Every structure is written in C-alpha cells, then in structure tokens.
C-alpha cells in the first residue's frame, strides 16, 4: 500500500510538511472524515464526564440504596440500579476514569518511546522487543494481576510494558528506510546536523503511521484492561471500572439484564470512537492517501 510510493511524491510530502500550517492542513483533512469527528466528540464527552463524575453523576457511585435494588432503567435511574441498589449510570461515569487514565498514560508513554527511538536504535532493545512479543500477553497479565495487589498504577504500567513494541518497531523501521532517502542526504549536504535531520526531516515523515498505531494501541489497552477487570484480575471492586461492573452481570442476567448491557456499551462506544479517530488520522496524516 503505502510502501509503493515514488520518490517524487515523497519529496513533495517533505516540502508540504516544511511549510507552516502543516498541522492545520492535517486538521482540515481530518475534519472531513465524518466518522472520525463523531468519534472525537464521543471521546470528548466521555472523558469530560469521567473527569467531572463527582459533579455530573446523579448519585454517589458506591453507596447502596436498599430502597432501590435492581430498579430497571427509568426516570429516576436512567440505566437502572444493581443488586445492592447502586446507580448504574453514576458508577459508569466514575468507571470512565479508569479508561481515561489508561488512555492518557499509555498515550504519553508511547509518545515518549517514539521520541526516544528517534535517537537510539539499539540492537539490544530490539532483542528485548522480541522477548516481549514472545510473551503470551494475556496469560502473563493474568498471572501478574492474580499475584500482586492490582492498583490503577500497576495496570497502566503493565499495559504500557506489554504494548509499546509495535510503535517502537514502526519508528525503527521508518527511520531505517527514511535515513537512506535522497532528501536526507540533501539535507546533510547542505550542512544540517543530526538533531535537525532527525526532528525536522525524518520525524515528520515517520510520525503518521506511529500516531495511528499509538491510537489503536490505546484502544487495545482499554480492551485488555476491561478484560482483566472482567475476569477479576484487574482493579478490584468497590472501585468501579467498566470491566469489573460486568463481572457479576452474568449471574444477575435473569434478575437484572440491563446490568449486562450498559457497561459493555460504554466500552464498545469508546473503542469504536478511538478506532474511527485512528482511521481519520490515517487519512489526515498520510499525504499519499488516495482519498483527499
């Protein structure tokens, strides 16, 4: 697909990137991707309501109400209540914090890794990548989740540790191919130093697929986090996360089927939005893409 580009297009891309307003151009392209815009809005709403959960949520997330046990969705409780009378919507809004922190922390981590790889390409590190790829990810995560007291911090660290490889490899691969290109040679000929070449000439060309992979990595991490919590090896109740709220939903399926629906819907909407945003970014950041 993208590897079949011609030199001429590549040079054109560099010129376009050197021009000011490069970010604005990408934004213009992104804005035309309708689904990506919808995804962005959904994510913004979810993240904001998670951050402001204390203010927005209609009830306290962890205070049981014996007068309102297993109330089906209705006016007082838009998404119903669970087996001890906690408001499902309020818990979901608070649970969103987990997903938001995973996303923010992991995004930062992946970002700094790609920045770092811009400088150091090291054989030992690539061997370590091999090791991480060979680990049966879910099995190891479950093991660690079962052994150690799982806190939000630990989960984020673990997800980071097991999901950075794709981004690192991508950065490495594009650096390896880009540094042999004529435009890099040209820049070097006119006297550009290493730092300028890396930041000004190579990174802008390499960053598109990296951002896309990072975005999808965040979606994957949220999915893994909720899976761990669902299986009971993630963040422990009473702290609400979307995953652990589904943990008891199966046994409650006959008495309170709505409990199995809403938490999953939140996870699904989040992942779907991130995937749409990733798709939009792919179109916006790849100047060679055919859809314009």
């Amino acid at each position: 697909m993208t590897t079949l580009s011609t030199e001429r297009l590549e040079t054109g891309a560099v010129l376009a990137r050197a021009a000011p307003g490069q970010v604005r151009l990408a934004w213009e392209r992104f804005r035309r991707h309708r689904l990506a815009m919808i995804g962005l809005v959904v994510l913004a709403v979810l993240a904001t309501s998670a951050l402001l959960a204390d203010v927005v949520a209609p009830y306290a997330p962890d205070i049981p109400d014996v007068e309102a046990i297993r109330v089906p969705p209705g006016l007082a409780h838009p998404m119903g209540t669970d087996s001890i009378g906690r408001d499902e919507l309020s818990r979901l809004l608070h649970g969103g914090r987990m997903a938001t922190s995973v996303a923010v922390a992991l995004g930062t981590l992946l970002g700094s890794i790609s920045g770092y790889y811009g400088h150091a390409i090291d054989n030992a590190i690539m061997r370590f990548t091999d090791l991480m790829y060979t680990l049966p990810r879910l099995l190891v995560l479950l093991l660690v989740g079962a052994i150690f007291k799982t806190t939000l911090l630990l989960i984020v660290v673990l997800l980071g540790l097991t999901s950075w490889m794709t981004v690192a490899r991508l950065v490495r691969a594009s650096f390896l191919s880009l540094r042999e290109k004529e435009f890099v040679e040209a820049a070097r000929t006119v006297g550009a130093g290493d730092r300028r070449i890396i930041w000004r000439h190579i990174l802008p060309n390499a960053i598109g697929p990296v951002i896309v992979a990072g975005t999808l990595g965040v979606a994957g991490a949220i999915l893994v986090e909720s899976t761990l919590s669902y299986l009971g090896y993630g963040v422990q109740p009473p702290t609400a996360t979307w995953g652990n709220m589904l943990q008891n939903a199966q046994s409650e399926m006959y008495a309170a089927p709505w409990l199995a629906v809403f938490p999953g819907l939140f996870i699904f909407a989040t992942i779907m939005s991130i995937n749409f945003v990733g798709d939009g970014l792919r179109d916006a950041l790849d100047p060679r893409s055919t859809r314009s």
Partner: protein
Amino acid sequence: MSRYVARRLLQAIPLLFAITILSFGLMKAAPGGPLSIYRESPDFDPADVTAIEEQLGLHDPIPVQYAKWIGNLARLDWGYSYVTHEAVTDRIWQRLPNTLTLMATAYLLTLLIAIPIGVLAAVRQYSRFDYAATTGAFFGISMPVFWFGLLMILTFAVQLRWLPTSGMATAGRDFDLVDRLRHLVMPALVLSLVSAAHYSRYIRGSMLEVIHQDYIRTARAKGMRETGVVMRHAFKNAALPFVTLLALDIPELFTGAVVTETIFAWPGMGRLYLESITRLDYSVLMAILTVSALLLILSNLFADMLYAYLDPRIRYR
C-alpha cells in the same frame, strides 16, 4: 534458507530461557502457594502443611527450584499438579481436545465468513456491500469479546431460550452430537465473528492491492471469466500475506480462549490456566506458559518460512 532457520532456532533458546525464568520468578514472588488453603482449614495442622511443602521442595531457594524444574523438563518430565496430584500432561490432555474442538470450529467459521466478505468488498469497492462490510468490521473490531458473549447469552439463552447458556453438554446426559453442537454454537460464533472482522479487513486490503496489477488486466484481456480472474489470479496472490497471518494464530489452538471459555464455562485450556492461577498450581502454569511461548516462537518462524516458500521473490539471509 536452512542457515536462516538454524539461526532463528538458536535465537529462540535464550528467549525461552528468559521467558521461563521471568514467569517462574513472578510465580514464586507470589505470597502463599498451592498448599496455603490447607493452612486456613481447621482439619490440618499448619506444621504438617509446612512439612509437606518442605518435602515438595517449595522452601528451597528459588534458583534451586528453577534448576530442578528445568532439569526435569530436559527429561520431558513436566511434573505433577500441586492441586489434583495428577501428572501435568494428564491435566492438559483432559482439556486439550475440548479447546481444539472449540478453536478449530471457530477457525473454520472465521475463514468461511471472512474470505467471501473480504473478497467481495474489494471486488466491489465503494459499493453498498463494501460499506456494510466495513461498518460490520468496525463493530467486530471494537467489540469486547466478553460483552459480545454476554449479549449472546442474554439474547439466545435467556430471552429466546434457543440455546443452553453454558457448558459443553447438558448435565446427566450421555454424549450426543446435537447437544454438543448446541453448546458449541455461541462460543464458536463469538470467537469467529470477532476475528472475521479483523481478517476480512486484511483480505480486502491485500485484494485491493492485487486487483489493480497489470496481470489482472491481462487475464481479463485474454477473455477469462470474472470469477476466474478473481479466484484464480487475484485471490491466490492476495492470500499470501493472509496465510502467514493464519500461521501466527496457531498457538491459540493450544492456549484456547481464556475469556470465551470463561463466559461459556467451556472446560478448555483457558479455563485450566485460570483455575491454576487461583490455586497457584506452579507446575501446570509453567507448562502452559512454556508451551505457549514455544508455539509463539515456532509459529512466527513458520509464518516467515511459509511466506518465503509461497512468494519466491522473498529471500531471507
């Protein structure tokens, strides 16, 4: 080629050591152990429990325990389960057929769903079918497996009562194929629909790349029928990267699907792993982790070799 394979196999050895040391260390760092539940039981004297642990070598220094484990492994002795006292291999043989049934069915279904959808979506790019397939794929890719499973149970077992909620057979009944299939439908569908979403996108992508090549135009120009062009010329070439992708999924035939097996209470390898985690059954856990890591390494190598074999333009050094 053989030198390349030899080098890759040699590289796998330190990798396997690293992985087993890592998992062994992790497990031993955990408080308690397989016998710790007896300590809380009034029927057992804690001193006896300690004595048995001593006898089993669970109090030896961790490097010594690891050395013993790897020494036994060198003689292909995987040890005994600390919970059921059966040989680890027996434990695995009890579960492996169930997992193979589930995973192989899901595999087959995945291909039957993903290939026609992917090919058609590429042949009719930007058609209504293509958009529907893309939307469906986005749904499948974004769907948390456990939620999908719960919704299936909610719909087909709880509401419609068409299918059993979980398990592999109706309790108290002898083996009966129809009964087994009724239990198999939902878990196999959940697994295959989610992975078909990924695969169909992949097939569509590589079909689109191939379909605009010169030799496709040549095939059409010589008067070949469109189905022949698509299947004989285009799909055969587009399937190359896809076949290697399939090879990468081989380890799953062994490890099973932890999540799906949990939701549907399917007694496979994934369940065995989770059950062993709760009891810290070291020997079973180590066996599953080691074999899956080994299979991951081998299937990666196999995929690379397959790719070079199918596409003579690719050479490895």
